[in-house]
């Protein structure tokens, strides 16, 4: 059975194009022209993935996101925001959206977001350990997979404390490509990093998707930790 995806957008032409594109990706595409209609469709069809525009009349994307998360908190909701509208993106993440894409939509971004969502869904289904602590010669490495939410925060905090206790010169938090961080996750991580700022341990964040990197930059997390696209080999050696 093809995965169901619900697209909510007030623009009919966009919906039409989305339908063609997502069908080509092998999804079963459901469409709704506003949040209200979207929530109804969601309730009826229960798709695992929802793509929603934010600015819509009648009921906007944020409202729809709240409603959908209320119905099923595990739903992957990717919000589509106007280009560079980071405030809205962060607001959506705070409401447990799992990812966001900018408008005008780039296929690459869409593909990545879709892939990440699929992986997260698999992880969630397999219920594997999402936070793993590894000790390397020069650094403590925390591997993170799936969704970083309020639920994963206690585990992450524990791992972080253990890693700090190892007394290594550096601490690397390595996110899997599919990893997503919601609002609560971002807040928790920010707290951890700022509390740590006083100690000598330098913290590096690696593997974050470009979306989350820009969110972190916007929120000023870069003050407490360095961001890398790839994991730093020197740190992961041995």
């Amino acid at each position, binding site marked *: 059975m093809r995965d169901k995806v619900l697209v909510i957008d007030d*623009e009919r*032409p*966009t919906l*039409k*194009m*989305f339908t*063609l*594109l997502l069908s*080509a990706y092998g999804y079963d595409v459901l469409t709704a022209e506003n949040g209200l209609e979207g929530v109804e469709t969601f309730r009826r069809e229960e798709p695992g993935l929802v793509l929603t525009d934010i*600015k*819509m*009349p*009648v009921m*906007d994307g944020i*409202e729809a996101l709240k409603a959908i998360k209320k119905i099923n908190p595990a739903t992957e909701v990717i919000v589509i925001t*106007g*280009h560079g509208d980071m405030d809205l993106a962060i607001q959506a993440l705070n409401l447990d959206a799992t990812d966001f894409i900018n*408008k*005008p*939509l*780039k*296929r690459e971004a*869409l593909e990545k977001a879709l892939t990440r969502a699929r992986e997260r869904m698999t992880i969630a289904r397999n219920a594997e350990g999402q936070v793993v602590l590894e000790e390397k010669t020069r650094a403590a490495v925390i591997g993170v997979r799936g969704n970083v939410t309020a639920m994963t925060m206690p585990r992450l905090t524990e791992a972080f404390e253990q890693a700090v206790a190892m007394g290594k010169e550096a601490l690397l938090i390595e996110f899997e490509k599919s990893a997503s961080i919601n609002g609560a996750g971002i807040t928790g991580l920010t707290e951890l990093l700022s509390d740590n700022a006083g100690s000598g341990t330098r913290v590096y964040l690696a593997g974050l998707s470009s979306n989350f990197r820009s969110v972190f930059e916007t929120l000023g997390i870069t003050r407490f930790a360095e961001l890398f696209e790839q994991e730093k080999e020197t740190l992961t050696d041995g």
Partner: protein
Amino acid sequence: MSFSERVIARFTRIGLREKLLFSMLAAVLFISVAIALISRWILVSSLTNELEMRGFAIAHSVAERGGSYLLDNDVPKLLALIFDEARLRQRKDLVAYIFIEDQKGNILAHTLTHKLPDSLRANTLPPGQPDSIKLIGLGNQEVYDLAAAINEGLYRIGTVHVGLNKRHIDTLVGKLRVAFLGFISAVVIITIILSSWLSKYITKPVSDLTRLSDEISRGNFDIPLKLGSGEDWDSAACPAFSNTDLPCWHFDQSRSGQTPAETHRKCADCAFYRKHKGDEVVQLGDSFRNMVWSIKLYRRRLRESEEKYRSLFDSGPDPIFVVDCASGTIRDANPRTSELYGYPREELLNMPFLELGPEHNTACLDFFIEGGGGCVYYPKRLHYKNGGEPFFVNMHACPISYRGKQAIIIAVTDITELIEKDAQLIQAAKMKSLGEMSAGVAHEINQPLNAIKVGSEFLSMMREEDLDIPKEHFKEVVNEISTQVDRAAEIIDTLRSFGRKSDLIEEPVDLNQPVRAVLSMVRRQFELDNIRFELNLAEGLSPVQAHSNRLQQVIFNLVANARDAINDVSNADGGGDRRILIHTGNHDGRVFIEVKDTGGGIDEKDQQKIFEPFFTTKEAGQGMGLGLAITYGIIKDYGGEIRIDSTKGRGTAFRMEFPAAPARGETKA
């Protein structure tokens, strides 16, 4: 022309003085001559008669006394008697001779020293008659011979002849005539002198008045005015002469009936207006003098006023024309007109006024030709300079009478700078609006771009993956891309036309068009704010003479205010009645557009002020308070009006009304 007519004509031509003189002379002469003739006739005849009587008395006395001598034939005694009688005192001048003849006609005695000429015997006394008189010649002189009978009882015994010297009588009569002539001459001379003086007395002031009147009608008021009383005036003594603000109480008082104010009380005892006691000539002189003073005073005031207005006309900062109503040509123009319009003055004069503003001046001329009274104001009329450069003016036109013809005074103010400033202000406000709109517009443009992007990504993915695209999908995508490009282009066009600076010239605009243009830019933004538009746009609206993008500015201002008003009472998420209603239509030859919101309404006290510049109810930093002021200015420019109907808590409706533009073809372009 008969003789009498010629005389009368000649008489009317000669001067009054001569007339008086001649008339009086003629009358006096006639009377004197008549008196002289009558008296002379009476005197001469009675004198002659008296002398004759004296002659008869002598003759009878001789006859009485000489009768006895005659009977006695005592000739010496007779001779002595007649000599005595003839030589008695003054008688010797009168009596030329006395002789006595007897019954038979023999000369008995005579007083002549020579022989009695026979010519003396011509006067014979008929029998039965006591005496007789006859003029006879004696030598070279004439003598009245008086014969008287000498009677003795019933018988005549002789005749006494007494010769009276006619020359002596004539001398007496001559003396009498000379006396009369002298008298008449004296009377005539006295009459001439008198009448000459009298006529001079009467005619001198008259001819003086004539001379003065001539001088005055030639405009020379500075001549000394010595009339009758012989006093001249000093203008400085009259306060009203030098100070034109003061009324001349003597003159103006009679009109208003008011009494002079305390400060001018002295004028009540005027130094110039006076009446002397005297005859009519004196009073005429006074009256004339007063009249001249009055003319002089008011002529001076008139000249001063004329000079004042002339200098106002010439030095006024604005161009002023005097336009003839009948021909529509410029009759006079002040120097500013040539400066502004760029025509030399000579060219301006007699130029048709229409040439300066063909579109708008017709209305002005027609108004006055059709007999419109009072002054009219024409704002924002398009005029052209020499060379065809257009500019805007405000015109004030008032009817006057100019050189006996109906004319219009047209004062023109160049408001190009003002319009330019207005345009700049509107432009600046528009730019601000553009900024406010930008978020909405970005969203509007992002939508088609997004659809295009998704569509093209679909195509490129299918291409890369080497998948077959079903024909209908391909067609759908390509059509959609084209449609969305058009849509984006349209938004950009609307945006550009909104931002463009308006031309000077207005064009006919369908009011629905700016409404739609504004909505195309902001509608989605408003809807995202959960504000819904309800449109009731009437079809077939009459066009309005305006600038489309300024009307867009107006509508944007109103809907933006409406949004702010709605946001004041409810928020996008909280629900509530969040609507903006736009209604257009025709009404009584006017076109209206109504923008109504469901916001908080405007306080009664603020409703009067919201069109004032810099009045704002928004928080500091939220607005300059210029939006509605500019809106108001724009609406007024197009001859429209705007009204507010607002109830606190129930929302506000702005209703704008514009005059419908005349249909094409009706206006002369």
